[in-house]
């Protein structure tokens, strides 16, 4: 996760570097450390260092890390020639290296020659069947080809071994949601909540999946998770506020006519509605009538 201070630092450095204020290497280091994806900037500033022999030799052994970083960024920007050059240099320096082998596989992948990339990856896996990066690349490859069921299969295989990897769980959850397999997605989000119980985003996503699944029990649970999202975000998440309203109205429709004994928090939805109104009044006053009519449509 990128914290707020880290992000402001990164943005400050980016502006500084963009305006020619130096500090390109620090910026690249920070990008690498935070694992953020700013490929165009990395490509531009990384190349400017690599093309300057003096600056490059100043880096010492870090030079090779930079080559790798630039190669990956170049592939992301589809500058395949640059990537190819970088990989060539790396290969000259580190023949037989698996890390370079990985890059070659990625280059094949970015060219779209899937079969060859697959071949490269499987030969890498033969040497080390637990190379997490290569296993993940396989998933990404299946996904890039639009082969979602393949991606799910690879991911499940990966998670069988590396079951504590929450990023993989998240990816799987998102794939399931995109395929409308909500029950499976719910399981994945539960797993994510378990690994990071204080992250409101997972609570929110779980609530949304449950709401989509429908049914009284699921809706009630969804409402609770929307509530926890509100608690964890301090009521700033409009999505969760809308969710509370929607859940309450859906529950009201389902239990209409029935003798209702639940009513644990009768006030929550009205509070959520007022909070929404307040937020809209502050941030987007022009949209306020829209909100009001939408809320009226939900009236319980």
């Amino acid at each position: 996760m990128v914290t707020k201070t880290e992000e402001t630092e990164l943005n400050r450095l980016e502006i500084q570097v963009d305006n020619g204020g130096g500090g390109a290497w620090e910026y690249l280091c920070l990008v690498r450390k935070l694992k953020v994806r700013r490929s165009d900037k990395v490509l531009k500033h990384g190349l400017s260092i690599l093309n300057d022999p003096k600056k490059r030799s100043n880096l010492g052994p870090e030079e090779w890390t930079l080559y790798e970083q630039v190669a990956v960024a170049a592939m992301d920007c589809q500058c395949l020639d640059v990537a190819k050059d970088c990989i060539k240099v790396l290969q000259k320096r580190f023949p037989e290296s698996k890390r370079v082998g990985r890059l070659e596989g990625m280059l094949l992948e970015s060219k779209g020659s899937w079969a060859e990339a697959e071949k490269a990856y499987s030969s890498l896996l033969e040497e080390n069947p637990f190379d997490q990066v290569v296993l993940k690349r396989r998933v990404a490859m299946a996904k890039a080809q639009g082969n979602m069921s393949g991606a799910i299969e690879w991911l499940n295989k990966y998670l069988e071994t590396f079951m504590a990897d929450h990023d993989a769980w998240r990816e799987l959850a998102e794939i399931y949601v995109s395929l409308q397999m909500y029950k499976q997605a719910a399981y994945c989000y539960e797993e994510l909540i378990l690994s990071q119980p204080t992250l409101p985003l997972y609570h929110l996503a779980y609530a949304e999946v449950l709401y989509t699944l429908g049914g009284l029990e699921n809706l009630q649970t969804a409402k609770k998770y929307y509530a926890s999202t509100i608690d964890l975000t301090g009521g700033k998440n409009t999505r969760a506020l809308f969710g509370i309203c929607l859940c309450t109205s859906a529950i009201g429709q389902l239990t209409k006519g029935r003798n209702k004994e639940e009513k644990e928090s009768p006030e929550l939805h009205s509070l959520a509605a007022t909070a929404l109104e307040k937020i809209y009044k502050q941030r987007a006053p022009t949209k306020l009538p829209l909100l009001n009519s939408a809320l009226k449509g939900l009236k319980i």
Partner: protein
Amino acid sequence: MAEDLVLDTAIRDWVLIPLSVVMVLIGVLRYFVSKLMRSSQVPDSKIVREGQVIVRARNLRAAANYIPAKSFRARKVYFNNEENGLLHVPKGQAQNAQAQMFSDPNMAMDMMKKNLSMIIPQTLTFAWVNFFFSGFVAAKIPFPLTQRFRSMLQNGIDLSTVDVSYVSSRSWYFLNLFGLRGLFSLILGEENATDDTQRMMQMSGFGVDPTKSLGAEKDSLDIVQHEWALPKFEQRAEAVLRKLVS
């Protein structure tokens, strides 16, 4: 001791400085030797998996109250059932694991390499120091110390009357052995420093049965009481919103 011992400057030139220099050189040499001998080790699938299972079970135990009761029960059964639960270790296998570890030639080879790069130079230098410099008072630290430091600073001198601030040569060797880590991380780069203390910890950690931790995790998961925390959140959310609205 009322008056100070005067140390010969030759001791400084021929004991104190050479000892430190030799220790540094040996550290550097050892780093390169171990780098030469290091084999890239493919981690065993079972061990990787077990570690991950334990992390996941621990997460489940710690955050159990954040998922609905039904989901928790399903997971508990998944981890703990007696047939094919992830944490369940069949009885016969528990003993095997250790024997297997020792019979694995790769493991033994690795151990030997570690030993070679750690114990042999250490014994040799210790013998060398002991042989040439035993019984020296090699240095004096510029501040007084209590008697408790005697065993640390005056190893090899059995005189109770010498002031504690004098350091014997053998103790100087030990101080160097454990104190040069900072210097190594400067010379060899941050992660490359040969950290003896850490390695010793690793050595003593070897031989712990991984299946045991699985069993322990299973037991603690068995006794977890599930109490769903989410209903409480509704009230809390209400309080938060009330504050926000007002």
